[in-house]
């Protein structure tokens, strides 16, 4: 069974920050259709700040890395994304603790704790058309695969499930966040939060278990 260590977590964060930067305009464009046109800008500001802190964290334990990421996001992102992604990483930190490497099932349990934190902070449930709709199937896919599969298989399943979740809610009417003000007009727009969450699970896959 492969272990996930501090270097894996740092590599994932570097890749996620890079992809958020690359897709900043796309995320902001999605947000301008049903929100307030700042999701990509805010996420990029937060992960640029995270990126600046990573060099000092390479030797740290998993919990310290995740906690630093969470606090940095809360302090720099603003909007709803700051507290939500911040809470995700803080819960991850609590679950990972002072360990420097964890097994896949242990890592999956930490991601589950992160998801529960997001739901609690945002008071969102499935089908409200939020990041929860991408994160929930991704975590469930991880849990289903964790026991018997290798890392690559599990992370591939999670990334795929996140994308399916993201696309599944596109036709829905939003019930949380600024998109909910639009009522019926929020239907048939891809959700920016579910999109940035899908990018997160894709980065997790590509950083921790690169193909080939």
């Amino acid at each position, binding site marked *: 069974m492969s272990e996930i260590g501090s270097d894996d977590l740092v590599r994932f964060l570097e890749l996620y920050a890079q992809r958020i930067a690359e897709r900043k305009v796309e995320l902001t464009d999605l947000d301008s259709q049903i929100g*307030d046109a700042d999701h990509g*800008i805010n996420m990029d500001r937060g992960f640029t700040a995270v990126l600046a802190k990573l060099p000092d964290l390479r030797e740290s334990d998993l919990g310290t890395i995740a906690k630093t990421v969470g606090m940095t996001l809360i302090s720099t992102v603003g909007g709803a994304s700051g*507290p939500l992604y911040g809470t995700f990483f803080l819960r991850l930190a609590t679950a990972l603790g002072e360990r420097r490497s964890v097994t896949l099932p242990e890592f999956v349990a930490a991601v589950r704790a992160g998801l529960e934190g997001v739901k609690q902070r945002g008071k969102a449930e499935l089908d409200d058309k939020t990041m929860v709709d991408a994160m929930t199937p991704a975590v469930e896919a991880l849990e289903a695969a964790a026991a018997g599969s290798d890392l690559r298989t599990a992370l591939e399943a999670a990334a795929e499930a996140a994308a399916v979740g993201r696309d599944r809610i596109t036709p829905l009417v939003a019930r949380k966040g600024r998109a909910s*003000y639009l009522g019926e007009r929020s239907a048939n727009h891809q959700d920016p939060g579910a999109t940035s969450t899908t990018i997160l699970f894709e980065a997790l896959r590509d950083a921790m278990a690169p193909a080939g």
Partner: protein
Amino acid sequence: MKKLINDPGTVVDDALAGMAAAHPDRVRVIEPNVVVRKDAPRQGKVGVISGGGSGHEPMHGGFVGMGMLDAACPGAVFTSPVPDQMLAATKAVDGGKGVLHIVKNYTGDIMNFELAAELAQAEGIEVTSVVIADDVAVQDSLYTAGRRGVGGTVLAEKIVGAAAEEGQDLASVTALCERVQANVRSMGMALTSCTVPAAGKPTFEIGDDEMEIGIGIHGEPGRERKKLATADEITEMLMTPILDDMPFKSGDKVLAFVNGMGGTPLIELYVVYNKVAAMCRDRGVSIERNLVGNYITSLEMAGCSITLLKLDDEMTRLWDAPVNTPALRWGV
């Protein structure tokens, strides 16, 4: 994008530095981006703070000063501020009697203020929060994030700030803020879009002959796209839902607030106010006080919002009380 800026990334910082330079008699700006009343903290006085995304100037920084806010926390443009700001603001204005957070009802603002309130309470400062949600354009149901906080926030900050100034305690200042929130209704519209500096292009496209009814203050699309109409017709489209929602009845005394969204000249706001006054007269609603101007804006968006607050004697007295802020100043 044509804007009077140096760099999209430094707009908020540059503007705050300008505010500090322009109004040193009333406010100072502290890290991390908090506008604080010059003489804060005032011992024995309840602190009142607010905050929200930038781009709504003069809200909230322009309302910091004697008789109104003790501090304001501006976030990035249209983005709620971060908890560090509200924590710093709360500590900077705490005079030992607790601090009220006035929060506009947006998902991000709620979460960031909640985190800040938890942190402040952990440091031993008593914090209460009141959420302003006065926009009748949004359905208030389990299926939305609830009504947005818009024009009513300006009125709440003035009235509640005056109550804190005269020495009311945290419980009564909080109850008053809830009473203002319960009695205020607003609705807005846009003729044009606005451009977030960091985004560089208009938030939404709108035709020369179109308007957006029920818009918020972030350029987020409203509920209905319509063909342009006359000012009187538009005023009716905004006033009727406001009057019916409360409902405002014959004999009610109100404060009528006609607000510009940033790109509409005052002459047009007075055209709107004229119809607001006529409609109130027709319903037997008495306008006791009014406010006309650009107070809660959406960058350079053209359009307006209308707010009606049902007044009681205490609210009227506190509205009239002296105020000395960069954007509202009377009785001093």
